[in-house]
């Protein structure tokens, strides 16, 4: 029964992918309907990324609009080497970083001020985040992420929302790969601290 359901899910997925391919092809030929369809399918995910990366809802909405406006041109450069959603999220991430860079008057968004030193968690204290399962706890976690400082939040979101590799994140943010790793770990430690604090 389970195997049957799994086969069915795989089939549906394959169909969706084929469908997506044709939509993208049409969009690359400037088909307005296809572009509208891509907007309908992905506006939520793109907005989500922008919302986590930027500081206000208005800015996130602006960035989302801008991503889809530019998509008419930029989609021509999509070559299918990575899954489309991932590519789109990379474009959206770049857009957000552009916004942040403009806000910083052209300076880099995250500046490496120190060598990547990480305070090690003590061995007797495994991550409390893994036990965050209840809905309200997850809601708390989301709020905590939204309130992280920018230098922790951006790499964390790019890793776990956009699912980019450390190298890609390093490239987008203009950092070294090691520093990205350190920032992501620090972000997690900060979240653990915040959530442990809250649950007390």
């Amino acid at each position, binding site marked *: 029964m389970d195997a049957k359901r799994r086969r069915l899910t795989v089939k549906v997925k394959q169909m969706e992918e084929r469908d997506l391919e044709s939509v993208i092809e049409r969009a690359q030929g400037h088909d*307005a*309907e296809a*572009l*509208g*369809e891509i*907007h*309908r399918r992905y*506006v*939520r995910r793109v*907005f*989500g990324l922008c*919302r*986590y990366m930027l500081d206000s*809802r208005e800015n*996130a*909405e*602006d960035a*989302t*609009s*801008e991503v*889809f*406006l530019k*998509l*008419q041109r930029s989609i021509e450069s999509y070559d299918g080497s990575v899954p489309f959603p991932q590519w789109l999220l990379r474009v959206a991430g770049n857009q957000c970083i552009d916004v942040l860079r403009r806000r910083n008057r052209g300076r880099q968004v995250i500046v490496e001020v120190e060598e990547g030193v*990480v305070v*090690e*968690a003590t*061995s007797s204290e*495994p*991550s409390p*985040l*893994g*036990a*965050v*399962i209840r809905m309200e706890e*997850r*809601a708390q*976690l*989301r*709020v905590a*992420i*939204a309130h992280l400082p920018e230098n922790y939040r951006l790499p*964390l*979101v790019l*890793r*776990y*929302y956009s*699912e980019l*590799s*450390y190298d890609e994140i390093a490239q987008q943010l203009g950092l070294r790969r090691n520093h990205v*790793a*350190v920032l*992501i*770990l620090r972000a*997690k430690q900060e979240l653990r601290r915040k959530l442990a604090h809250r649950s007390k």
Partner: protein
Amino acid sequence: MECYSELTCSLFVDGELTGDAARHLRDHLVTCQRCRDLVHALRAESRVLTESLRELPEEAPSPEAFSHLGFSWVWGDLAMMAAVLALGSTLFIWIDHLEIPGALEWFNPFSLNGLTNLMFNLSYYFAHGGTAMLTEYVAVVGGLFLVLLLGGSVLLLGRRWRLPKNGLGLLIVLLTFSLPGFALERRHEEFVTIAANQTVDDTLLAIGNTVRVEGVVNGDLLAFGRSVEVSGTVKGDLVSFAKRTVVSGSVEGRIYNFSQSLDLDGQLGHSIYGFTQSLRVADRGHVGDGIVAAAGDVSLEGEVKRSVDMLLSGNADLSGSIGRDMTVTGRGLTLTNTARVGGNLTARVRQLKGVHIADGAIIAGKRDVQVRVRKSQFARSRFYFRQALSFASAMLVGWLGLVLVPGFFRETTQAVGSGWRSLGLGIGILAGVPVAIVVVAITLVGIPIALMLFAAYLTAIYLAKIWVGAFLGWILLRPTGATKYDWLLGLLLGLLILTIVGFIPYLGGLVRFGIVCLGLGAFAWQLYHASRPAMTA
């Protein structure tokens, strides 16, 4: 062997450890319980992070509203607009069924032309009525609006537990209205001019034939006049009642516009809220927020940063750019090669013929252009529901009339039978009362009386069909006993016939017009009769 650091384990879990390093760690995990626990915990952590991030943080409302409707940010403002426009729209709906020859449109107080004429002439009369009188009126009207707004706010607060920012702005403007002595500078001249080197620190209430701002107004500008021109700077909001408003300078707040025409050729910090015949954002014009407007024709050549929502009786032309969604209901829509819409385009038009979207126009979101089918009202269940509701309420009103004032009800009904006398009297009242309302509003007794008169006028128009319906039923049934129930049965039959006849194309409108005149005439005649004995006594 020494244990691995959390950083290395984290890299391993995220699949970022390669080659030998990954193999060594994997080997180590077989023997080391501590590192195994750490890797498990980190893996669970990554999963939780990925899953949690699929939702948005609670403080951010769902983007559905933004992407689909495009104006979640204006809900509060729409509610405010709705409150202001509610009265007007009910009149529009009612008058929609009346077919009046085009040449007489200007005379029809309910058409857009007639209404704007009436409104702008009224505001012009105001302008010449004297500052003192206006201040009093403004206080009364401001108070009235305040009560309305407070009521509306309570409702909104109940729903969202917070007052929308823009609504609050409007509230503050009107508060200033209702407290005329508070930080308000008044100017009432033929030509009110704030010269280029002049600065007004307070909110400025300017009334005149021409109001021209070349300098700086640090507060809000409330302008009444034939022509309002802002080529300087208004740091607050601009509230304009004029025949023509031109902004070529900058307004840093919002524009609340009740002008016959509004031209924006300069910079606007926030939104335009407009009730206007023609609205134009010229190519140098920039709107920092969005536009919410009920208008005749709209032409957008400049830039609007956020959404545009419009209810038009004419056409919308877009050759500039809109940052978010564009939602239009109107006769036609034109997007030129330079047009740019950052979100969805939603249009409801009368004919697809009226829609021209150039190939070069960019629409980032979905394009949804549909013909607004107006004739299909008979196919919609909502229409029958509304008719049934309106029928039931008319019957209820008739029944109340029969119970409360049986004599008056019957005599008015019979007065309908006088035919030409009622018809003539009715036409006179229908056309005359609006004029009287305007006159009353600008003479001594003032706006409260005018408002009461207006309410009575609307009530009488509503009652007209009941008298005529009852009369029709009465002549058809000719009840012998003439009990209350015979009358009600007659009313039922009469209203039914009138309702059905009212839906005949063209003739229906004429019939409805005739019914209103007949009923009004009979009502007025009977009122006159009923009051005469009392006066002579």
